[in-house]
């Protein structure tokens, strides 16, 4: 085992991909300088600024450049610095990248990766804190992954670069600098496979990205009260490993879905709908959803803290599915 961070694993994976495949290039704002979080630090020194290409602040154009480069044989990794700015690239991503293969009758392929990061908790206010994964998961043709730990971001980024489709890798800024221990020789992480993070027989908690850690904290608290929660991290939203979730729900008969995004229209609704369709007879309680309120992320620190879903919300939701509401709730 060795100690690392989520961010260091992104950097190391990019180094490895670029060494192994001359078609891989990194495109984005300030990437040659390492970017605001140092995800791409040192790449330009080794691979040069032809392959580590700084761009102007032109999200629409640089997304188009990545698409054209991918259609013409390269393997671009595009960085959109904050997922909040993906709005500016969405025409290219949604109307071109996602549809090129289908609309061309299979002639075109767009093997590009769009790396971006989301999430609140750093007082970034409403335009630097969002969780917009459900927008992307709604678009056929895109694959969407959302790793919650260092070993998964390395494995999924590597799989994304090798994938023949456009893949959006949504990182979490709040996970970047946490120290983690990973195996020296980690297993590959294929796109589309969930991970059971913790086993338990009383309630299934499906959590995305930062909420995986919150779900584990809630599970510890529940365990102290004699309730064993199973925690599942889908890791990939599209294609979703539904079977892993359904298999768990068949045993626990209860489901909580938790993410940081606004609950309204969030990806948790999709998981809930598909689980009830596949396992309605196994459910002993309504599916509980945990997510942010239907409001922009507030700036003021106490308000942001109150706004963000966390382990307390997951704990309360799990107790609710068991018909044992938490004391005082």
């Amino acid at each position, binding site marked *: 085992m060795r100690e690392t961070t989520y961010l260091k694993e992104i950097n190391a994976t990019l180094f490895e991909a670029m060494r192994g495949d001359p078609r891989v290039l990194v495109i984005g704002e300030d990437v040659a300088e390492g970017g605001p979080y140092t995800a791409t630090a040192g790449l330009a020194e080794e691979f040069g600024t032809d392959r580590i290409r700084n761009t*102007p602040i032109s999200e629409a154009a640089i997304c188009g450049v990545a698409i054209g480069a991918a259609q013409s044989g390269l393997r671009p990794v595009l960085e959109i610095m904050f997922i909040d700015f993906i709005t500016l690239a969405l025409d290219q991503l949604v109307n071109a990248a996602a549809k090129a293969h289908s609309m061309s009758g299979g002639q*075109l392929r767009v093997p590009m990766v769009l790396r971006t990061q989301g999430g609140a908790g750093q007082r970034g206010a409403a335009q630097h804190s969002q969780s917009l994964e459900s927008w992307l998961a709604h678009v056929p043709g895109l694959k969407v992954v959302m790793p919650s730990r260092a070993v998964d971001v390395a494995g999924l980024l590597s799989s994304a670069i090798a994938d023949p489709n456009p893949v959006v890798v949504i990182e979490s800024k709040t996970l970047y600098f946490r120290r983690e221990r990973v195996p020296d020789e980690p297993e590959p992480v294929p796109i589309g496979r969930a991970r059971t993070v913790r086993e338990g027989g009383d309630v299934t908690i499906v959590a995305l990205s930062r909420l995986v850690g919150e779900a584990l904290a809630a599970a510890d608290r529940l365990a102290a009260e004699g309730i064993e929660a199973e925690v599942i991290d889908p890791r990939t939203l599209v294609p979703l490993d539904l079977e892993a979730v359904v298999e768990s729900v068949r045993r626990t008969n209860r489901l909580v879905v938790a993410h940081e995004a606004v609950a309204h229209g969030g990806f948790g609704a999709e998981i809930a709908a598909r689980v009830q369709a596949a396992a309605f007879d196994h459910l002993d309680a309504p599916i509980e959803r945990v997510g942010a309120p239907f409001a922009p992320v507030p700036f003021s620190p106490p308000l942001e803290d109150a706004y963000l879903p966390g382990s307390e919300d997951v704990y309360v939701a799990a107790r609710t599915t068991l018909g044992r509401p938490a004391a005082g709730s």
Partner: protein
Amino acid sequence: MSGRRQPPAGPAAELDDGQALALLATMRRIRLFEERVAQLKRADEVHGLIHLSIGQEAVAAGVCAQLRGDDPVYSGHRAHGHAIAKGAPLERVMAELMGRVDGLCSGLGGSMHLVDTEHGLLGATGVVGGNVPIALGSALAARLGDSDRVAVVFFGDGAVQAGHFNESVNLATLWGLSLILVCENNGFAEFTPRSAHTNIERVSDVVAPYDLTRETVDGNDVLAVREAFGHLLAAARAGRGPMLLECLTHRVRGHYEGDPARYREALAEEDWRERDPILRLERHGVAAGWFDGDAVAAVERDAGEAVSEAVRFARQSPFPPAELIAELVYADRGRG
């Protein structure tokens, strides 16, 4: 016409009689193809939103005649002429417009999304100006792959006011990509004249601050288009770029088939005969002794037969199987 910053004196290939006749044949094929498409649209055999380039054929012909098969070409929503000029088989374009499985895109793309990778047509788009940045990506791939391929993107003057166009021109000049931007300035952005969209009349003036090589020509004169584009292409092939060729032209039809076009006066028949790029080349070529009236008639007859054959081919092609919908969403699912 007005050359702003003149291109470096790259050699434009001399035009021989055969090439002149080939230009005429390409324009005539596009014209007859699209006239037939208009009929078939009214008969509900061709489907969807159809944008015809009748009157603008000289740009497609003059540009594509000089490109190699591996030069990537992108287009917009008015793309039939570009596809045909780049070498896409008429029958497969027609089948695509009819939504048939033997269409270029197996019937999943339609008129606005023609792609023919075999002939270097990497795509048309229904998003105005949307393929301009994508063409940059192909030019970047050529650069990094040490290839002398030149990327070309066609767009109308309506695209020039979009943010992604301006982002792209900035980036293409910053990176010095071998890209030629070909603007078909027909004076109308969908239903409104250019004057209602911008105070800048000429597209070559819009991009002037970027100091890229640019030229404005009479886009209804196929010889002028060919000459100007040839100079630009030679320079781009040598690694200099990007460049912009603005072709002033005229859209005979409405924005789309079915558009009553009440927003403008149709050109008088005799005025149009003066400006029609096909008639102009016919008159000029016969006067110059490049070809005679019999050759002109043969070109028209051959084009008519090719279009009829394309319609026959398309009509007998089946509609695509419903399984294709799911198979083609991802490149690692099913075929593709």
